[in-house]
Every structure is written in structure tokens, then in C-alpha cells.
């Protein structure tokens, strides 16, 4: 695996990101990662807060239209995250906190899919705009997992 990380870090893409003379390359990838976070976690938080009972006047059905926008945020971060990882694979790849972050992001995406299936695709819930306790539990878990992913992601700079 370490060989793989070394190889990854020495690919043309990775060296371009990590060693480009332009001040724009690495920081712009980093900025994209932050913006993707804002889109994905921010919209997810809106949906989670609604499911938890804040802003009860917001109907559930139209909120489902925000899922594709969240996936855009997710893919911005999957791509920018891969680029940032490639640029420093041999150091990031051996950080346990990196794998914690990866696991939390994975859990966050799974929770979003579960929320979509068990809340937004459930006519019994969407038609009457009353969230079940399962839905509230998923929403609380989603908020906790995203917060955890942010903590782990930030701490990668210090490990």
C-alpha cells in the first residue's frame, strides 16, 4: 500500500498539484474542497434540521429537489479530495485520522441515501409532512457524522 501511495504521489497530476509554481493550483483545489463542504453539509444540515422539527412549515416533498445539488457538492469534494490526497499520499495515507474522516464521509453519504429512501420516498410521511422517530434519528445521526467528518478533516492538518 505504501508503494501505491508513493506511486500516486509521483504521478504527473500529483506533482502538478503539490509543486506547481502557481499559487493558484493547490489553494484552488483546497478552496473547491471547502466550497463543496459548504454545499453538501450545509444543505444536509437544512434537511436534518427540518426533519428534527425546526421550520415545521417547510413541506418535505420539495426539499427532495436539493439532493442533486448535494451530490454536486459531494462530487466536487470526492474529486478535489482525491487530488489533495494524491498530492501528499505518502504522508496522508499513513494518518489514522484520514481513515476516520473517510469512514465518516462514507457514513454521511449512506445516511443521506437512507433519509431519501425512508423519509422522502415514503408517501405516508411526505404526504402528511410528519416525520417518524426513525427519520429524526437519521437526521440527528447525519448532523453528528458531518460534524465528526469536519473535525477529522481539520485535524488532518495537525497529524
Amino acid at each position, binding site marked *: 500500500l505504501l508503494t501505491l501511495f508513493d506511486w500516486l504521489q509521483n504521478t504527473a497530476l500529483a506533482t502538478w498539484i503539490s509543486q506547481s509554481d502557481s499559487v493558484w493550483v493547490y489553494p484552488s483545489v483546497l*478552496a473547491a474542497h*471547502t466550497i463543496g463542504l*459548504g454545499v453538501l453539509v450545509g444543505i444536509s444540515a*437544512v434537511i436534518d434540521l427540518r426533519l428534527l422539527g425546526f421550520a415545521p412549515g417547510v*413541506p418535505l416533498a420539495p426539499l427532495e429537489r436539493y439532493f442533486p445539488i448535494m451530490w454536486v457538492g459531494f462530487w466536487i469534494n470526492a474529486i478535489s479530495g482525491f487530488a489533495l490526497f494524491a498530492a501528499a499520499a505518502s504522508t496522508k495515507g499513513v494518518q489514522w485520522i484520514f481513515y476516520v474522516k473517510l469512514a465518516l464521509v462514507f457514513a454521511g453519504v449512506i445516511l443521506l441515501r437512507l433519509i431519501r429512501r425512508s423519509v422522502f420516498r415514503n408517501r405516508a410521511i411526505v404526504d402528511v409532512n410528519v416525520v417518524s422517530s426513525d427519520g429524526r434519528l437519521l437526521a440527528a445521526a447525519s448532523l453528528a457524522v458531518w460534524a465528526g467528518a469536519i473535525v477529522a478533516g481539520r485535524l488532518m492538518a495537525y497529524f
Partner: protein
Amino acid sequence: MDLNALAGWMAATPLSTWVNAYGWIWQTAEIVHFVGLALVVGIAGVFDLRLLGFAREIPVGALNRLMPWAVVGLVLNIITGVLFMFGAPSRYLTNPAFQLKILFMILAGLNVLAFTLVYSSRTLGLGAGQDTPSGAKVIAVTSLVSWFAVMYFGRMLPYLGDAF
């Protein structure tokens, strides 16, 4: 205004000493700053998109009930932002990325003020499917552009200029 003198004064405050006394203070403030970012951008962004006509079945006033959470995010970020500024004033005050970030924050603030004064009474009562006045759409676009610019220049802070 002499920014370097101001930075020197800030660096000599007890707050500046405290921020730099322990590594965990800065690291924790960074985490809080990113959580606050998500709240502000997510809630403001969803609200702006509704003003622009996306997911129009959501009553504007109902969505506005989430705004206190955006304010929580904003307050967290102002507090942690002030900690960063006092922690390393010379890196921030004269940094072009920081100055642009502040500029876009002021724009976002004036934009909220304009919305509150002129368009809140004309939009918060709008129900499912109702369209907003075009002026409110201009406000929404300004808001989206400002917050994305705030994030962008915030993240570019350590890399623009030679302060870091």
C-alpha cells in the same frame, strides 16, 4: 488607517497571547469555523435558491424560520474569526485575500439589510408556488456570490500575499 500599527496593538493584547498559548485553541477554533460556515452557506443558500424560484413549493416564510441557525453559524464564525485575527494580526490585516474576504462580508451584510428593509415584507408572506419580485432575485444572487467569495478568499488566505 495604519494597519501595521493596529496589528502591532492587537498582537500586544492579552487575547492575542491567550490564542497562541495552546495549540488546541487555534485548532478548535478552525473546526468551529468550518461548522459555522456550513450552517451559514447551507441555510442562506437554500433560502436564496427559493427566492430565485427553485423548489418553489416551499413557502418563503416557513424557510425563514431556519434563519436563527444561520445566525448561530455567523456568530460562531465572527467569534472564531476574531480569535484568528488577534492570534496573528500581521498575517491578516494587510493580506489581500483577507481584505477581499472582509469586503464580501460587508457586501453580504448590506445585502441582508437591503432584503430586510425592502423585500422581507414582500416575500416572507409568499406561499407555495408564488414567485418573488425580481429585486429579491437580485438580492439572492448577490447573497450567493458574496458567501461563495467569502469562502473562496477565506481559504486562499494562507496562500495570497506573503504573510503566512
